[in-house]
């Protein structure tokens, strides 16, 4: 069993959080509130020392007065709390939206639309390997049928209805895979905690 007090603190807090699985209790509440408080404190101190201080206040104190512009833009967000001048908040929001949209629209179109379309196109070269050719056709059918499912401009009957129903099957397979992965992820976190309790704390495993 560990003699490190930090390991003990970690283990006791882990057990406090796990106690919620039985039912809500004061130990769980203590662990939860402690976590929220520490996480907030960590982020405030971290952003102060690693973002605000080096990127804004140090250049300002070194006489780089151009940094007054981002400082003012940042402060304008707080005008939301003063109704008389709350309209000023539109300036930093407009700046952020303008910058964000200008930067992301072409990049998003290129990476998420054009390259993905390119990946869906089936060419004779795709069939150089039979297995990948079959998968490419399945992907093509899946993409088209899923898109048809979200096409609401015409009543979904006949060919459109059949394609739409096939689209639902592809969507459900996608949801099933995502659910399976989510279970795996959550179980991984449990395994990690059990490894910690059995290993560093109790010393029962390496």
């Amino acid at each position, binding site marked *: 069993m560990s003699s490190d007090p930090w390991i003990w603190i970690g283990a006791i807090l882990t057990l406090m959080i796990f106690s919620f*699985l039985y039912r809500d209790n004061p130990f769980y509440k203590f662990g939860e509130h402690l976590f929220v408080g520490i996480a907030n404190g960590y982020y405030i101190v*971290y952003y102060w020392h690693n973002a605000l201080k080096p990127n804004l206040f140090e250049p300002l104190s070194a006489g780089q007065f151009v940094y007054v512009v981002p400082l003012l833009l940042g402060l304008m967000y707080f005008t939301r709390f003063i109704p008389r001048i709350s309209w000023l908040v539109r300036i930093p929001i407009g700046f952020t939206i303008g910058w964000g949209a200008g930067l992301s629209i072409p*990049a*998003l179109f290129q990476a998420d639309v054009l390259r993905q379309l390119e990946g869906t196109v089936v060419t004779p070269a795709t069939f150089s390997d039979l297995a990948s050719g079959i998968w490419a056709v399945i992907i093509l059918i899946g993409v088209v049928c899923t898109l048809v499912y979200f096409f609401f401009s015409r009543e979904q009957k006949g060919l459109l209805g059949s394609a739409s129903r096939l689209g639902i099957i592809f969507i459900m397979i996608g949801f099933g895979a995502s659910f399976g*992965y989510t279970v795996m992820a959550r*179980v991984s976190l449990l395994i990690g905690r059990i490894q910690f309790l059995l290993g560093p704390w109790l010393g029962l495993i390496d």
Partner: protein
Amino acid sequence: MKWYDRITMIDRRVIYLLLTVFVIIPFFIKVTIPQKIMPQTRRLFDFIESIPPNDKVVMISFDYSPQTQPECHPMAKALLKHCFARGIPIVGLSFEPEAPGLAVDALVSVVQEIDSLATNREDSLVYGIDYVYLGWKSGRIAAQLDMGEAISGVFPRDYFGNLIDSLPLMQATKNYKNVAIVIILASADYPIDWIRYPQTRYGIKVGAGLTAVMAPQYYPFVQTGQVSGLMSGMKGAAEYEKLVLDHGYARTLGSAETGMNSQSMIHILIIVFIILGNVGYFFSRRQKGTHK
């Protein structure tokens, strides 16, 4: 109460207890459930294999938090072992505020393990020559784009306060032209920014090691080649550990491989519960239909 009603109303605490028992059993009783290596994990491994030693660096963006340590930390360690064993220098960085401590832990533990086996100076790893950790930076999209021009413009100093230009590895690594691939180990949606911005603008290769929750949304990017390889959750980490071991780059397996035995046991248990739930639901519905 009928048997089929009973199996649909198992107390959740019994299920939690069984889950815990099934997680613990494989740690004490040797249960080996074979793991098939998925193609996307092999693609990442093969990509690292194709990088010539002491040429370009592998940039690892450590972007996971302590909550997802069981999934992403073994990935980091296996990847570092692979790169170091092949003589590929590493440049680490982070955009997740909670990640720097974990990144340093992964680097230090792997470096110590390799150094403890080194018989001469050439076999050991030297900070600033074989690896560098740049630390955390805010404003990740701007930072990722600016690194395409000059890494030293974004990170003038490393995590430990050293001037970047004073480190031999960074003198040779000016921008993405000197980077073979960026591998993002993440518990949040960080890789998409690397794909949308630096890859679109500079054509940099992107690989990823993600928590299992996030993995499915990146499979389309693997299919199009925008992501050169992907480790998915603890299973991906275990697969990479196995590949590294099988190729003689490590002497032992890591924690993910051990965890995967528990993972498989739990999945069997969950499948049993799903079947029981459905059987109970089916019989109780049929019974209600008969009474009508």
